[in-house]
């Protein structure tokens, strides 16, 4: 095949999309029996979630603090610094927390998933499992996928709360916005559907990022170079998908 022909690229893209979709269906079927092995699942929640805690909390704190600074500077021009809490809470809940958590997740946990599974493929561990009539989809892929899907909303919620306290730290402690006003205005303007929007987004991003990471690893070229390429593709595809899905979901919710 001549790789310069545009048709080849197009066909390759369509083929990849089809392969991901088929993989998703197989994975979902294997998710139910994978639940019967909670130990494997707990291990993956630990890997994807608990070990991402520090990076998520640090990032959340600083994103919230920047929101506090920028929001304060902007709102002060209109003499309504009291709305800082609303701006920070809605910005975090609806957009920043799900998106930044997903991007960090792709970089922190997605790459680990891809290279782990890719190396299993490269060292023939997956083939060995198949020979022993152990389905690697059920015992390797499905728990990792589920772990990511479960971890993402929890990470997003932690990001939101830490970010909100970061904004409060800058707005109230440093800039002198009244604490009572900050929280009461926030409570008055945030509704449950704002929380839901962030939650739905984080679940969808969790599905997308975990699926891409597991798929890339599972179908990685069984060489050192192939695993490296697959890891790169995971980050690129997860980030682009996250931002694309974010636009679509925002349009649906608004």
């Amino acid at each position, binding site marked *: 095949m001549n790789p310069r022909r545009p048709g080849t690229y197009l066909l390759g893209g369509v083929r990849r999309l089809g392969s991901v979709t088929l993989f998703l269906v197989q994975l979902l079927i294997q998710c139910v029996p994978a639940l019967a092995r909670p130990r494997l699942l*707990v*291990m993956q*929640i*630990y890997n994807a*979630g*608990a*070990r991402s*805690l520090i990076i998520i909390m640090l990032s959340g704190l600083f994103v919230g603090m920047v929101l506090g600074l920028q929001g304060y500077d902007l709102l002060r021009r*209109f*003499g*309504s*610094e*009291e*709305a800082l809490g609303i701006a920070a*809470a809605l910005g975090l*809940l609806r957009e920043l927390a799900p998106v930044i958590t997903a991007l960090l997740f792709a970089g922190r946990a997605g790459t680990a998933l891809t290279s782990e599974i890719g190396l299993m493929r490269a060292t023939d561990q997956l083939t060995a499992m198949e020979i022993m009539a152990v389905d690697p989809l059920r015992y390797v892929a499905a728990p990792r996928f589920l772990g990511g899907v479960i*971890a993402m*909303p*929890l*990470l997003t*919620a*932690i990001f*939101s*709360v830490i970010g*909100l306290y970061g904004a409060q730290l800058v707005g109230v402690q440093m800039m002198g916005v*009244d604490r*009572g*006003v900050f*929280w*009461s*205005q*926030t*409570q*008055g303007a*945030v*509704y*449950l559907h*704002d*929380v839901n929007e*962030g*939650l739905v987004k984080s679940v969808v991003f969790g599905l997308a990022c975990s699926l891409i990471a597991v798929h890339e690893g599972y179908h990685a070229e069984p060489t050192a170079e192939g695993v490296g390429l697959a890891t790169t593709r995971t980050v690129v595809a997860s980030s682009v998908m996250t931002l694309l899905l974010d636009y679509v979901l925002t349009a649906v919710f608004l």
Partner: protein
Amino acid sequence: MQNNRTLEIGTGLFVLLGFAALLFLTTQLPASGVKFGGQKAGYHVSAEFDNIGDLKVGSPVTMSGVRVGEVSSIRFDSKVYKAVVSMRIDLQYNEIPEDSFASIQTEGLLGGKYVGISPGGLDSYLKDGGRIELTQSALVLESLINKFFASVASKSSDIQSGSKQGSDQAKPEPKK
């Protein structure tokens, strides 16, 4: 064995934190009237207003612009048809005269409402459970605009209908 323990504690901690954060976001953030950081020391006084505008629990209570406390609860009294605002005043400000005057004011042009207290002249001071009798309601922008347009409209109709009803227009708006 040791490895197992770390795994379980780590996962448990993460899931606990995650659900605590979710709980915070779903219950504390949207619902109003939830206290953050426990009850602070202070004493409570109440005041009745005809209209509190968008005053909220947690709004500041100030004297001469200095924060002395916060609004701790708001309810509607169906006997006198007024809003009863309960305020928690910091203990250090315990010498507020009983005949002080409470009014609801706005921070900035678009800002939230707050309660301003102007001191009276009596020697007896407000105590826990005390009540501020003299109050002034929030200025509601819409009703001010309505009044303004009503007065403009009546003026212009007076001009159109000649000087027959000219005496009406001189009547000023009643002020509090």
